C-alpha cells in the first residue's frame, strides 16, 4: 500500500477504535479515588508476612509467579540477543579499539562514579524489601554502572573488568535459582513459591522470609543480564565488521 492509503486505512480503523475506547476510558472510576479492593488485601497480606515494602511482597510472595515469568522473559531476551547478535559467518571481530581520546576530567569522573554506582546498586538490591528498589532496579544500576568504565577509559579497560563468561553464568544462575527456590518451596510447603524461612521482626534485613532470597536471585540475574545485553550492543557498534566490505573504497 502507498503511504497515503496506509494512513487512510489507519484513520478509518483508528476513528472506529477511538469511538469504542474513549467512552470506556471516560467511564472509568474517577482518578484519585479511594476504592482499591486488591490494595487493601495486599497490604494485609504483606503485613502478615512482615514485609515493609508491599510491592516487594507482591512481586516475590503474593504474585511470585508473575515475577518468575518476568525473569524468564529477561533470560529469554538476553539469550535471544546473544543469538541474534552473534557475528555472522563472513564477519570478523576487529581487535581493540578504544573510544576516541577522553578528557582527563571525564575519565576521572567516570572512574570515581564506578564504585559509587556499584555501591548504590548493591544497596538498592539488598534493601529492596524495606525501601523503594529491589533486585531489578539494583541489578539495572549494577549492570549499567560497570559500563561507565567505557565512558572513563577504553573498551579494553571495560573488557578486563567485565568477563562476559562470568556474567553469562550469573544471569543463568540467578534465573535458575528463582525457579529452583519455587520448586523447593513446593516440596517443603506444598505450595509453589511460598515463603519458607522463619521470619524476623519487621525492618530487619532478613525479615521477610524467602523474599530476600528471591530478590537476590533477581538482582544477580538482572545485573549480569544487563551487562551481557549492553556488552553485545557495544560489541556490534565497535568491534564487528563485515570482512569483505572493509576493503571497499
Amino acid at each position, binding site marked *: 500500500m502507498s503511504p497515503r492509503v496506509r494512513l487512510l486505512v489507519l484513520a478509518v480503523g483508528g476513528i472506529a477504535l477511538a469511538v469504542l475506547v474513549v467512552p470506556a476510558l471516560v467511564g472509568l472510576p474517577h*482518578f484519585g479515588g479511594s476504592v482499591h479492593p486488591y490494595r487493601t488485601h495486599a497490604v494485609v497480606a*504483606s503485613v502478615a508476612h512482615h514485609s515493609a515494602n508491599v*510491592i516487594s511482597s507482591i512481586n516475590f510472595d503474593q504474585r511470585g509467579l508473575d515475577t518468575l515469568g518476568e525473569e524468564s522473559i529477561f533470560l529469554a531476551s538476553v539469550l535471544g540477543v546473544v543469538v541474534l547478535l552473534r557475528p555472522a559467518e563472513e564477519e570478523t571481530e576487529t581487535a581493540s579499539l578504544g573510544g576516541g581520546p577522553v578528557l582527563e576530567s571525564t575519565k576521572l569522573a567516570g572512574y570515581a562514579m564506578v564504585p559509587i554506582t556499584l555501591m548504590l546498586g548493591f544497596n538498592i538490591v539488598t534493601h529492596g524489601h524495606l525501601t523503594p528498589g529491589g533486585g531489578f532496579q539494583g541489578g539495572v544500576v549494577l549492570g549499567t554502572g560497570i559500563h561507565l568504565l567505557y565512558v572513563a577509559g577504553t573498551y579494553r579497560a571495560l573488557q578486563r573488568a567485565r568477563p562476559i563468561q562470568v556474567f553469562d553464568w550469573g544471569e543463568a544462575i540467578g534465573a535458575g535459582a528463582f525457579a529452583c527456590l519455587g520448586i523447593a518451596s513446593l516440596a517443603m510447603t506444598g505450595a509453589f513459591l511460598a515463603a519458607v524461612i522463619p521470619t524476623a521482626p519487621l525492618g530487619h534485613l532478613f525479615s521477610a522470609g524467602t523474599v530476600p532470597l528471591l530478590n537476590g536471585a533477581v538482582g544477580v540475574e538482572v545485573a549480569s543480564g544487563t551487562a551481557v545485553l549492553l556488552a553485545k550492543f557495544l560489541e556490534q557498534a565497535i568491534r564487528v565488521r563485515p570482512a569483505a566490505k572493509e576493503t571497499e573504497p
Partner: protein
Amino acid sequence: MSVYPYLVAGWLMAVGIIGIVRGRNLVQTVICLSVAQSATYVLLLSVGYQRHATPPVFGEPASKPNFHVVDPVVQALTLTDIVVSATVTALLLSLAIQIHKRHGTLDPNELNTLEG
C-alpha cells in the same frame, strides 16, 4: 481532571501506533512501540492512584496495616511491564541491526523480500 490521566494514556497509545504506521526507519518503529507501551504504565499507575495517600513502602516496623497508601498492585504490574519493554526493545533492535547488515537499509518501503 477526573479522567484526564486516562485520556493521556489513550493518546500515547494512539500516537505510538501512528508513529509505527508512518515510520520510515525500523529503529524509529521500535521507539514508537516503546512510546505506545508507556501508555500502559500511565494507565495502570493512574488507576491505582489515591489522593493524599503515601507510597506503599513502610520502611520501618508497623504493627498494623496502614491502608492510606496508593495501590501497590498496579505498581508491581508496571514493574513487570517495564522489564518487558526493555527486553522487547533489545530483541527488536538486534533484529534491526541484522536487517541493516543484509539490506543496507532500514526503510520498510525498500524492504520487500516478503511480498506476496
